[in-house]
């Protein structure tokens, strides 16, 4: 699958704010078996200096989902989602996500390549609070598999 390299550098409009809920963090932590009290108990989180329960490190993917959809579903880019495989994922944190955060995502296409019939798309999503405080930068590389 060939992706249009002219999309490199394109930045998408900010997503609607994602309200990080305490119960969502607890539910996510439970689903991955993360039992540290700071994921579940606000008092435990406060004793570490956080305003409320702390999200596990990969929780930001829930926040960036809408931003990823903006790109993958951009008709001009033309990704066939049924052929998408997750390649790489990376998070660089300014601070952890905590309950009560209202987070906005701005995504930029960093790299578009085609190799061996497969398309590779790397996006960077900057996640910040509605007040503009940076929280985490998230990189995701997807592989769009070519027709065999």
């Amino acid at each position, binding site marked *: 699958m060939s992706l249009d390299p002219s999309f490199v550098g394109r930045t998408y409009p900010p997503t609607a704010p994602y309200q990080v809920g305490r119960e*969502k963090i607890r*539910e*996510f932590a*439970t*689903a*991955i*078996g*993360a039992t*540290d009290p*700071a*994921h579940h108990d606000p008092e435990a989180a406060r004793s*570490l200096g*956080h305003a409320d329960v*702390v999200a*596990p*490190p*990969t929780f930001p*993917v*829930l926040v960036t*989902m809408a931003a990823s959809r903006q790109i993958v579903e951009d008709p001009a880019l033309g990704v066939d989602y*049924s052929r998408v*495989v*997750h*390649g*790489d*994922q*990376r*998070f*660089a*944190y300014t*601070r*952890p996500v905590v309950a009560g955060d209202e987070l906005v995502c701005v995504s930029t296409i960093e790299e578009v390549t085609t190799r061996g019939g497969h398309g590779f798309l790397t996006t960077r999503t900057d996640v910040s609070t509605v007040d503009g405080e940076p929280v985490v930068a998230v*990189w995701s590389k997807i592989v769009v598999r070519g027709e065999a």
Partner: protein
Amino acid sequence: MELPTQTYRVTRADLVRYAGASGDFNRIHWSDRVATDVGLPGVIAHGMFTMALVGRAVTGWAGAPDAVVDFGVRFTRPVVVPDTDEGTEIEVSAVVKEVTEDGLTRLDITATCQGEKVLSQARALIRTTR
């Protein structure tokens, strides 16, 4: 320095729970029919579920749930989860590569399932002093 290996059992029930908690309802993570139709051996774990388990190992080693500064992986092989009570197992190990002057520790991580590596370039940078 090698860190103690962590072993996580993964069953279909875990995948269903992760799908609900994460909002990733891709059918290859719960339907054998759909998974085999797209050429997979069967239902596979969400890559982000595997990464989340690795994240658990990392925060456990760090001794703090908020210690991760940078965390990245490449997904190289799917984790096939059979529809049995036992499911499968993911083993996560790591070596300390470096401790920086500003108190950050760099880990090189290995994650395997059924003896095969499922990730490459799995690295984390953790804060080891508060």
